[in-house]
């Protein structure tokens, strides 16, 4: 399982960076999403994967005795997912607005020359 996740994270980061380096703005956005997912999976993996051992204390016991799943990575990932959801929603609206304004998906068309500054 760990090995599979490691490979998956590597692929997500690699494709994410590759997509970031494209010219198209939609691909830029997809790249950012892939990178964010890679980071979330990385936290999940590094928080040690423990199967079938929820961190719930039996009402009779005072503390944990066994190996249990660490709840913190999941809390971190949940926070990160919510944040990246907000950012991506904003980014999609922004890119749509760009498309309406300049009628192009190419990042190279984003350069208004300095003379047109006010």
């Amino acid at each position: 399982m760990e090995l599979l996740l490691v490979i998956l994270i590597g692929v997500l980061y690699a494709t994410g960076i590759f997509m970031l380096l494209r010219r198209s703005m939609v691909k830029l956005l997809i790249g950012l999403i892939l990178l964010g997912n890679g980071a979330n999976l990385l936290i999940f993996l590094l928080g040690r994967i423990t199967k079938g051992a929820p961190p719930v204390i039996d009402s009779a016991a005072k503390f944990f005795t066994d190996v249990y799943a660490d709840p913190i990575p999941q809390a971190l990932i949940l926070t990160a997912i919510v944040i990246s959801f907000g950012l991506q929603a904003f980014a999609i609206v922004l890119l749509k607005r760009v498309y309406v304004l300049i009628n192009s998906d190419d990042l190279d068309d984003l350069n208004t020359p300095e003379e047109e500054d006010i």
Partner: protein
Amino acid sequence: MTDNTLILSVIIHLFTAIVLLALWRKTVAQRIISVVGSVVAMVIAIRLFTAVWDNGILTMQAAGWDAPFGITFVADVFSSTMVLLTSFSGIAVSIYSATGVARGRMLYGYFPILHLLLMGLNGAFLTGDIFNLYVWFEVIIIASFVLMTLGGRRAQIEGSVKYMAMNVLASTFFLTGIGILYGITGTLNMADLSLKIAALENRKLVDIVSIFFIVGFGIKSAVFPLYFWLPSSYHTPPSAVAAIFGGLLTKVGIYALFRVFTLIFIPDEFLRTLLVVLAIFTILTGSFGAVIKNNIRRVFSYLIVCHIGFMVGGLGMYSEIAITGALFYLIHDMMVKTNIFLIAGLIRKLRGTMNMDKLGGLYAEYPLLSLVVALVLFSLVGIPPLSGFWPKIYLFEAGFMDAQYPLLVAIIIGSFVTLYVIAKLWAKVFWKNQPTLPAEENYTDEFKPMSAFRKSLLVVPIVFLMAIALYIGLAAENVALVAKHIARDMKDMTPYIEAVLGTNVSP
């Protein structure tokens, strides 16, 4: 010492933002509430600073969960100084915005977002938890995205695509670093991390993780080679927004660099060399960029990059004197950079353009105002005894003691180019005669027909920030005392760690 009131600096801006949201579309009330909120925030920040200065580090354990399990808020001298400076910039910008920002932008929530941005800044300065720092960074960037795009002119939208992409990328790097850090130490509390990282055997892994933080914070604070988004976006939003961005946002990255690289990762030889090299290139690229630009705000954007290098260089030298110099520069820079963007906005109001070739004759028309501007610009250059001069003494002293000659040369070039650029700007905008423009480009002076009250709303913040910059320059010994205190704290973080964890950790 535990003190729950330290969170007030964050709450006041949240509260102001909520009240402002309730007053949606009532722009006059919004302007008043915003200024009142900023004044209250300044009072709170001053109280926080004096409390920390007198009584030492204050901590707050959120919801009573003891560190390292809960989220800790910590106010040491460094944090509280940053909160104080943020409140100064905040009050200047919220007064300036009352006339400096178009009503159309206010109708779409300019003021609430401004206060949410200030809340995020204060939160980032006060938190003692690395993941919480990430969350505050996200609060800051989402608010800054809205401020940057609000208005939706073509140039703004173009700038914000670059700004958005680079900042989201920086956050991802930062998050990756946090993930690995949690994997190798099992904690997120910065004080606890400091102890756990110091005890790790595998130093190579620590270096690799620290690179993630350098890249993440480096993008945010515009360090070479990751700075290019800054000059291509900071000239687009309204000047009040650019002032907050230029004065505070890049400095949060610097704050985070200083915090992380003095508390968690103590730089070894490799990291120090890396930071110094980055600083040299940041200074050089920033200053060369400033020379060729012709738009006032583009020039200032490159000067931000150039001066970021001074601070990173100070961190890279890592002696107590060098850090003192870098922190002194940070204090000076936050005040002056906010101010120069406000001045750029004022020039735009006077002439309707920021292109230096189309400007001129301001000194003949507004001599008193020009004098104020001159003082600010000279502070930026660092003409003794103004504020930019003193930190450079410390940086030079540290550079000679440490034999960092390439960095010294870069700092000299950076300072000289700043002088050249500012002199050029002064000559072109203030001294030379107003050039005759083609008829269709004729400017309208928006400033002259304003009522005296509206005029003062634009000028008072500039004078206020200038007064603070003058204080930093003329009462440099007081500021140096603060900077030295912070530098001493950074070289020995034991009091910080003990205050957070509440235990005795001295070896």
